[in-house]
């Protein structure tokens, strides 16, 4: 029998940006999918379906970008679970042990649970990848967006991507990354649920309230 203690792990900026990201990704995926494949065709020329879809996409794109930047800043000023070393377990020996342990648990090799105060090592690596995917979406998105005004701010900021990857290359990347994020979300919610059930650490609740149940022997 283990005695777990309740500990404040996810500070409010981590939780806030998490939920902003979730909402943004849902809206951006729905509107983005419509932009890529306008499956609803309307009969009245006075409608503005694509117009609103694009408007929403761009508004949430800004929100998403701000949220990403805030989370990036928190990587440098947040607590130990939010800082960037937590996202690079491959950089330390303990991290590698953690990776091996989590991997063995997920692949049914061992029954011993990973038990981490912050993210478990595999989750942390997945999040690093996801933060990069977020950045790719932001960069390709604003490069595409900037084309409405060559020489404007966004064109200046990300337009240099166009000669390298080509306009269609950026679009395809932007489109494929949406699917990668959807794939991640499915896996992410599942493993959150799994750990919640097995570790009994309250991980699902933690992203709302910030507290997790921690095994004091673990740190």
């Amino acid at each position, binding site marked *: 029998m283990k005695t*777990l*203690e309740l500990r404040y792990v996810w500070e409010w900026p981590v939780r806030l940006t998490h939920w902003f990201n979730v909402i943004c990704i849902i809206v951006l995926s729905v509107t983005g999918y419509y932009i890529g494949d306008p499956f609803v*065709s309307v009969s009245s020329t006075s409608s503005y*379906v694509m117009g609103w879809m694009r408007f929403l996409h761009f508004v949430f794109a800004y929100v998403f970008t701000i949220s990403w930047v805030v989370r990036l800043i928190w990587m440098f000023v947040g607590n130990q679970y939010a800082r960037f070393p937590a996202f690079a377990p491959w950089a330390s020996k303990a991290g590698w042990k953690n990776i091996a342990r989590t991997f063995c648990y997920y692949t049914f090799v061992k029954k011993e649970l990973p038990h981490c105060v912050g993210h478990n090592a595999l989750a942390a690596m997945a999040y690093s990848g996801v933060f990069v995917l977020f950045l790719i979406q932001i960069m390709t998105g604003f490069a595409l967006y900037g084309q409405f005004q060559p020489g404007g701010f966004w064109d200046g900021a990300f*337009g240099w991507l166009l000669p390298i990857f080509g306009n269609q290359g950026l*679009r395809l990347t932007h489109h494929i990354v949406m699917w990668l994020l*959807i*794939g991640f979300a499915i896996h992410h919610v599942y493993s959150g649920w799994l750990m919640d059930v097995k570790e009994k650490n309250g991980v699902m609740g933690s992203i709302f309230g910030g507290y997790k149940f921690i095994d004091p022997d673990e740190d």
Partner: protein
Amino acid sequence: MMHDPEKSLREGSVSEEILQQWEARGIKRRDFLKFCSVMTASLALPASFMGQIAEAIEADNRPPVIWMEFQGCTGDSEAFLRANQPTAAELILDYLSVDYHETIMAAAGHHAEAAKHKTVDEYKGKYIAIVEGSIPMGADGAYCTVAGDSALNIARKVCGNAAATIAVGSCSSYGGIPAAAPNPTGAVSVSEAVPGATVLNLPGCPLNAENLTAAIVHFLTFGKLPATDRFGRPKFAYGKRIHDNCERRGHFDAGQYAEGFGDAGHRQGWCLYKLGCKGPETFHNCPTVRYNEGTSWPIQAGHGCIGCSEPQFWDTMTPFYRRLPQVPGFGIEATADKLGLGLAAATAVAFGAHGVASALRKGDETDTKVKKED
């Protein structure tokens, strides 16, 4: 916002003397004024520049022109020569002294070559070089030779000594169709073949003759080539996206799309986005200037834009009738959405299975009692 030619005449912006000289050459003053005002507008200059333009093309500084054709289809020459009004392209063509142009010159063989060399030597650094078609670098340039010399050597010599080089059409601007994968001849653009040359790209398949005329007028008026974008194209002609000036844009924003050629939506002039239109990816002034003296342009005629004025369009804008390119490494029928949906479904199935296995697995749960932290 039409510029009124008569008004600028009254204001004296184009001198009476110049008008009379053009009349003596058989060009009506109205037509000449119209030409000047179209050029002023094309170059996005204020109307007050009209007089300056009129003077520039009147001044007796006719730069000789050498027009070279390499790996191309002569479509750009055609576009230029077929201009049907004396007021636009033809006027400038008459005005310039085209010393060499394989399709239209009277001379042939050694005489023609001699004329070309003479111009290069006599007007070093003063003439305008125009290149149509790409330049093959493969097999030491053997794939395209003119009068026993390779396109590469000719381009290096002629463009390298020109005051300015204008690459007309997508082939000379970016390699175009000859440079499409697998590019058997090693075709490249003029700026790649002659890195030191001052090159203005006027891509398009073919280029729009109006833009060439305007570029030349700009050069005559200001003594330099117009400002360009990051692909070496003049901003006055390639500064706006087709999609942002398209006459079907209202249907795009509304959500009205032709689903097939000849269907009800197509016949009503709805947006061609779902038929693979690349207007959202392409910069060109087709919607405003149109082709053949403003007669029409592809989207007006009912076909989506294929992005012909963008670099490597044959490789990057295909498939022409689909919105997105193919995902590299997968078959023709695998669109990004099919693969994505497959990925999402596979993830769900895999984790579903993992979940069932985990639920059946006993003895791995933490046995707990919770203590509140104080």
